[in-house]
């Protein structure tokens, strides 16, 4: 602000001699216009000349159409006061708005710095991820080879297991079949034997029924009684 005011003050100081010089030039011009040799120029031409000469009124309140001094008819309002007014405006503004503006600028600076830091961090993370992916992509062939080898190994093992199970099943089925055949043969043999025995016993029974004689009956009864007598002697000795 101070710099700004300084700049304005320097501008005013530098502008002073220029305005005075221009005023001299304007005076000469005016005089020229009033001479018949100089040709006729109107009021509009005066204004144009005044504007072309720069700041002509610094501090005079006698200006415009109501000016007492006829030379001041075409003058603008005093520029020095306008400058002072502007300086006061700047001072008030600096008092009221400088701190919030400064704080805003600081906050904005911090925010931008923070965003820049975050962006840098994100960039670093992205770069790290990129490196990881690059590393993975670089190692993916090796990984695929490893996986293929593992799958091959597992499939070989599975094949061996299935083959072993199939062989065991086949062996078991064969043993079952052999056992079943042996059991069937044994059963058939026993059935045959049973049939033969039943027929033999039936034939013996029929034969005895037909052929056993009274003498045979007597002999068998005799033997039976003899056995009972022997048992009685053995069981109850006198």
């Amino acid at each position, binding site marked *: 602000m101070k710099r700004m005011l300084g700049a304005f003050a320097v501008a005013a100081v530098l502008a002073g001699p220029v305005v005075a010089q221009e005023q001299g030039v304007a005076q000469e011009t005016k005089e020229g216009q009033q001479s018949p040799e100089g040709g006729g120029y109107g009021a509009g031409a005066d204004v144009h000349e005044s504007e072309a000469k720069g700041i002509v009124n610094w501090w005079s309140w006698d200006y415009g159409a109501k000016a007492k001094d006829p030379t001041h008819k075409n003058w603008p309002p005093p520029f020095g006061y306008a400058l002072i007014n502007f300086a006061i405006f700047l001072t008030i503004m600096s008092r009221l708005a400088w701190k919030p503006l400064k704080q805003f600028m600081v906050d904005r600076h911090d925010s931008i710095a923070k965003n820049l830091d975050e962006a840098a961090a994100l960039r670093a993370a992205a770069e790290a991820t990129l490196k990881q992916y690059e590393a993975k992509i670089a190692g993916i062939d090796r990984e695929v080879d490893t996986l293929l080898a593992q799958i091959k190994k597992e499939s070989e093992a599975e094949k061996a297991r299935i083959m072993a199970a199939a062989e065991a099943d086949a062996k078991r089925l064969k043993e079952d079949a052999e056992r079943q055949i042996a059991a069937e043969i044994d059963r058939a043999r026993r059935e045959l034997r049973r049939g033969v025995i039943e027929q033999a016993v039936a034939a013996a029974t029929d034969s005895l029924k037909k052929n056993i004689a009274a003498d045979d009956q007597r002999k*068998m009864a005799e033997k039976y009684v003899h056995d009972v007598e022997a*048992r009685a002697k053995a069981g109850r000795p006198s």
Partner: protein
Amino acid sequence: MITGSLSRRYAKALLEIGISQNTFDALGKELERAADTLRASPELRNALENPVFSLEKRKLIMDELSRRLALSKTVRNFIMLLLDKGRIARLPDISRVYRGLVDEHAGRVRATVVSARPLDPMLETRLKTALEKQSGKVVIFEKREDPSILGGLITQLGDTLYDGSVRTQLQELREELLSE
């Protein structure tokens, strides 16, 4: 088992009376006669066991039967008691148990001899003597003929069975051959 135990209780009660009166043999014969009659006539058995007939009527029937069978007062009263208790159906079983108890009391044992043909009297005597020697009791022979035993003899002496029949020997031979 419960039925056997019940019959035994009734038989023992009657035996005690018979022993006290020294008429246990006669009572046994009367009881057997009544049991045989009951066993031989389903109509009579039905009339005595059927609760449709009143007890008085059934007692009248039994009274008439006792008179015809010339049963003693003791046996008659015993049978009336069975009627009263609804146990008349057990009479054959009680008679059988009573006979066994009487035999046991008198030192006797019954032997049932089965033969395919009539047994020679001399062999019968020898068998009876051997059985008496073995059991130590007087043996009462009950002979029966059964041609299906083919030959030989079967003797049931008390709980012991002496099976010397050809039929059993053939069965044993059959079992032995089948078990090989």
